[in-house]
């Protein structure tokens, strides 16, 4: 490896638009690593075409390449800019694949670029099951024998020796691994067909299935001196056979004994050493519940959701440390910011709380997707519950995952027995509710464990929760029962619903009986040291560790886990808002349960509460912190209404879309204005494009700016827009929508005015170079400088055309690829070009659109 002391310029391969399998966790890690690199005097270049990327906001325009993340584009950057090193691990599998291709075609060697994080020999093996297995076998790590086949005949020949059920995997696939479990020959032939098409080498592997084994993930770090630390073990409640992103995950593992855990830790370390990984590594194991045997099932030496979860739930500064390791520092030498106890980086985390992560599904927005859970990931996000018992953590995470305005759990009591059993054996998305219902109907933990292969321990815990629920039902308004209920994670809303009263009554009862939450710190030393970590969670015990942050605090309520819709843009919004609040001198407090959020990085947030964002919990936090400002997101109507009843400095950001003046059926052009007092600043004139035939406004998911119109037309539209806005009360970022007067008319008329949507706000910020989220925030907190505002110059008629196009999960969910609606978006891409290249006629065709987005610069 090249001498890392000479490192001056590093190219980070970004991860592109958010999708199923990676949300905002990669962007979050990138932000923190860039910060670290900056401190060490390393210049960072980033290539990414994600318009909602916060990392792109953190670097100078000269270091940013807003281009499609493709091998060709990366190659050009390497050629032109000659970086000393390239960092693939923040780009997930995409980054790895691109770097693999660059090695293969000789570019890495030719330009003398060092690969950070692992030797080239290891990089070549990632995603190549056959090569990786060979390496693992050499170091005596147990693997599932995968045999490579190139034809159906070869596969048929192996069926005898491998047996069913078996798994078919494409070799070096173009997307995240698509593994298919096959019960018989027909299944296998189908899977092979798909697999050959997806493989870069037209090959597939066949292997014995370990479906039903326990799935345990281990996250570790390693430095150049071969010192290794285990950060966390993540136990999937659901067994192998359900993708770990779709499983409910608990950390630390609850059903392993020490020896099993240490065996996996040893294996993780051996593998990290053998592969020469520097930085973070995330390994999946399948553990046979009947003996102590395990198999290595997946090796991911890059940033993943599992890595983000390990960092969030331990409080270990994982991104910071990894950044230092990547540029060659040893764990023992890493200097952390002063708020950490000096040697936090080199202590192996031990924690005294339990965290449960629950997936969030897209099925409400994409109802035709198959809800059966299997080895292909379907969840679009996740949410975390933290507590001091498994019950408490589970219940808090389930509450956070339901997005129920009044914090109650939906019921599945209308399932027939037959349906229920079927769903137990062939799990669907709302897994945990079905498990609870089965217990309610009298199934014993042992029976359910037998049916689902889930460890009986979890059923014992769920049964305990049902027992408490029964206790609540039978003792209305009883204070001791209330205490028990809160102790184990029941929220105000749930208790109120069972007692058929309102949350105010519950709060009053709690106050009278002095039942109040104690907040504990999320830190990696289990109380041995006085860490000053920033994460807290609520529990009902003796000591409260959370002291009010002090003067001038702003409490920001997050959105919870990622869902379909403008959520990555919402994450961008929240983070930029936090930045602005900090700049204005506020101490920022974020309440959020999304382990992949960007806003929780210490650069942006001084303190976080990982608690359900529900009325009761929010009020508890307000009681401790007495914030000067409370900011609630616009889609939480009930919460906003209730909080509005109190004497708080409450702001609704992002703005509530329902405060729009009329929702038109269709719109073809919009004018965005920033309205403040008498100022109306024209920010941009955009074409609103609905790829596909229908121009329904819900299907407008692509935007072109400036709109393809004559200059004079654009200016006229701007004037019309300003007039329209004058008549209404809207301020801040406002979008005026236009559509043709009638079907054949060329003339445009105003059809609606609404607060600018999150996605478009991000787009406008990236294109105009002015951060409108920050402007909006400043307007709300009263620090907007009118002189500065007046001095902003926007070129509405720029020659450089920008295009933003939403990305949908249809392919990953195996449903028909069709024009999606705004509430089905998973992320978006942004592209720049000349107006000739980006004409409207090209953009209406989805294929053409794709080509444009992914073109080589």
């Amino acid at each position: 490896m090249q001498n890392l002391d000479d490192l001056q310029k590093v190219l980070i391969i970004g991860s592109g638009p958010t999708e199923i399998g990676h949300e905002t966790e990669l962007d979050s890690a990138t932000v923190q690593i860039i910060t670290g690199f900056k401190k060490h005097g390393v210049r960072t270049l980033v290539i990414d075409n994600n318009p909602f990327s916060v990392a792109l906001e953190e670097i100078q325009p000269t270091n940013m390449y807003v281009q499609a993340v493709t091998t060709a584009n990366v190659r050009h950057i390497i050629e032109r800019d000659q970086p000393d090193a390239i960092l693939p691990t923040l780009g997930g599998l995409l980054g790895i694949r691109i770097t693999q291709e660059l090695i293969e075609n000789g570019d890495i060697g030719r330009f003398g670029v060092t690969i950070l994080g692992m030797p080239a020999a290891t990089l070549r093996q990632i995603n190549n099951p056959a090569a990786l297995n060979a390496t693992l076998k050499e170091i005596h790590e147990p693997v599932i024998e995968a045999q490579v086949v190139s034809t159906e005949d070869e596969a048929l020949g192996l069926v005898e020796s491998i047996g069913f059920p078996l798994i078919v995997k494409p070799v070096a696939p173009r997307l995240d691994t698509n593994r298919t479990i096959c019960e018989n020959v027909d299944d296998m032939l189908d899977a092979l067909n798909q697999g050959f098409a997806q493989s870069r080498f037209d090959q597939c592997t066949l292997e014995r299935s370990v479906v039903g084994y326990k799935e345990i993930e281990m996250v570790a770090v390693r430095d150049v001196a071969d010192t290794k630390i285990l950060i966390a073990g993540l136990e999937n409640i659901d067994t192998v056979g359900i993708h770990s992103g779709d499983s409910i995950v608990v950390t630390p593992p609850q059903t392993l004994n020490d020896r099993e855990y240490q065996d996996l830790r040893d294996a993780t370390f051996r593998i990290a050493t053998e592969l020469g990984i520097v930085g973070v590594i995330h390994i999946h194991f399948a553990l046979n519940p009947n003996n102590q045997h395990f198999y290595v099932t997946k090796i991911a030496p890059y940033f993943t959701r599992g890595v983000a979860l390990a960092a969030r739930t331990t409080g270990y500064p994982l991104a910071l440390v990894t950044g230092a390791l990547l540029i060659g520092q040893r764990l023992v030498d890493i200097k952390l910011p002063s708020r950490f106890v000096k040697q936090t980086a080199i202590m192996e985390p031990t924690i005294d709380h339990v965290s449960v992560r629950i997936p969030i599904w897209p099925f409400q927005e994409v109802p035709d997707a198959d809800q059966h859970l299997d080895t292909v990931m379907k969840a679009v996000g996740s949410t975390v519950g933290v507590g001091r018992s498994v019950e408490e953590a589970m219940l808090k995470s389930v509450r956070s995952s339901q997005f129920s305005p009044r914090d109650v759990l939906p019921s599945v009591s209308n399932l027939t027995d037959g349906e229920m059993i079927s769903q137990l054996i062939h799990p669907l998305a709302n897994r945990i509710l079905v498990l609870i219902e089965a217990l309610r109907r009298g199934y014993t933990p042992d029976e359910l464990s037998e049916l689902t292969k889930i460890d009986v321990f979890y059923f014992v815990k769920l049964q305990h929760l049902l027992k408490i629920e029964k206790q609540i039902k039978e003792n209305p308004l009883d204070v001791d029962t209330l205490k028990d209920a809160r102790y184990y994670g029941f929220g105000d809303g749930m208790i109120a619903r069972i007692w058929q009263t309102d949350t105010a009554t519950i709060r009053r009862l709690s106050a009278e009986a002095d039942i109040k939450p104690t907040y504990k710190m999320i830190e990696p030393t289990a109380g041995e040291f006085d860490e000053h970590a920033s994460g807290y969670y609520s529990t009902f015990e003796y000591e409260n560790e959370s002291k009010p942050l002090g003067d001038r605090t702003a409490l920001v309520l997050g959105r919870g886990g990622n869902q379909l819709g403008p959520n990555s843009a919402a994450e961008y919004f929240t983070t930029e808002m936090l930045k602005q609040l900090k700049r204005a001198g506020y101490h920022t407090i974020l309440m959020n349960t999304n382990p992949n959020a960007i806003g929780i990085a210490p650069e942006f947030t001084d303190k976080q509460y990982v608690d359900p964002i529900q009325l009761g919990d929010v009020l508890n936090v307000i009681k401790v912190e007495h914030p000067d400002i409370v900011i609630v997101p616009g889609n939480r109507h009930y919460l906003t209404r209730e909080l509005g009843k109190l004497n708080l400095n409450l702001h609704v950001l992002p703005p509530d879309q329902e405060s729009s003046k009329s929702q038109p059926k269709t719109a073809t052009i919009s004018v965005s204005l920033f309205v403040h007092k008498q100022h109306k600043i024209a920010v941009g004139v955009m074409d609103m494009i609905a790829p596909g035939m229908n121009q329904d406004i819900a299907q407008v998911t692509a935007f072109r700016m400036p709109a393809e119109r004559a200059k004079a037309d654009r200016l006229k539209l701007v004037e019309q827009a300003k007039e329209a806005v004058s008549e209404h009360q809207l301020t801040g970022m406002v979008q005026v929508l236009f559509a043709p007067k009638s079907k054949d008319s060329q003339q445009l008329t105003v059809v609606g005015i609404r607060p600018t949507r999150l996605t478009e706000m991000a787009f406008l910020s990236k294109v105009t170079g002015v951060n409108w989220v920050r402007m909006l925030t400043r307007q709300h907190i009263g620090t907007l400088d009118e002189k500065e505002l007046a001095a902003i110059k926007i070129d509405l008629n720029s020659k450089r055309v920008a295009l933003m196009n939403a990305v949908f999960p249809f392919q990953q969910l195996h449903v028909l690829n069709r024009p999606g609606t705004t509430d089905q978006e998973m992320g978006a891409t942004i592209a720049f070009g000349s107006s000739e290249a980006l004409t409207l006629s090209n953009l209406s065709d989805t294929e053409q659109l794709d080509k444009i987005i992914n073109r080589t610069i």
Partner: protein
Amino acid sequence: MEKRYLILEDGSAYAGEGFGAGATTSGEVISNLNLLGYQETITDQIYHNQIIIFAQPAIGNVGINHDSYESILPTAKGMVVRDVTNISTNRLSRLSLDEFLQQHNIPGISGIDTRHLIRKLRKMDGPVKGSIVDVADAHAFDQLNATVLTNRQVDQVATPKPYPNPDTGKNVVVIDFGLKHGILRQLSERRCNVTVLPWTASAQDVLNLDPDGVLLSTGPGSPLDLGEGVLEMIRAVQAEIPLFAIGLGHELFALANGAKLEALPVEYHGSSHPIRRIITNDIIYATQGQGYAVTAKTIDRDRLITTYVDLINGTVQGLRHRDYPAFSVQFFADGAPGPHESRDLFDEFMEAMTARREG
């Protein structure tokens, strides 16, 4: 589940729910920060007469199994936990924690804010006494204050008579101070033909067996309570036979060779601390759990070399004799519970014995 109390000598009382035995007990209160391994911990004799507070909030999840005993008859005086599950169906397990504790008359108390306790205890210098009682009244506190922590601990837990652990390989004598079974398991894995001797054995007793190597085991309490006889035995044996000492054994080895010990203001029981192996400058992690440490400046450099150091608190974690193949470590080389990377110390021991026989 009845209401019970944990009371401390500073006058504080914590209400919780009892599990395990209903006995009323008193003892020194110790915090354990290991991530897993409650069974190994509760059966480790270093916790003789101690009440253990577990940092890990959910205990009992995997019941009690055959392979995780560190002793047959545990002598701890209580378990203090946040949340306990009484389950006995992990594939290895046969008993629930509750049943096990009842069998051995050890009380447990759950529903306690263990994080708070651990944070509070680490600010209190020196051993802290506590009791698990039914009623937290003046009488209970009186009893607690009158409790004297015993110094005859090794006597209570070590074997009074020799016994064998036969196998076909090297002949190893283990001097038992209340050993943890993890040690025997590591020796068994390496096929050692083990004879366990009581801690009162003389050097002649040891040499009469003509062993290839001698291992001084772990145990509870202070080495200063064990008298001079043991130290003489160590001095005589180390000059003749390869020696390996762990935990309490390490402390005795240090004393025998002229070093002094100090009581740690707060004991550390956990495996998070990086420990530097000085000779190769590597870092390993291992389970620690002792109340004393060798005082670095009292080490006679003509006799002993410091081989391991805890990077967090600077304590000496390993020693080696300059003139003889005799070495020791403060931490638990066998893991159980805890990291396994230090198990190669047993391999070192084996190789030292081989070299001695062949050389």
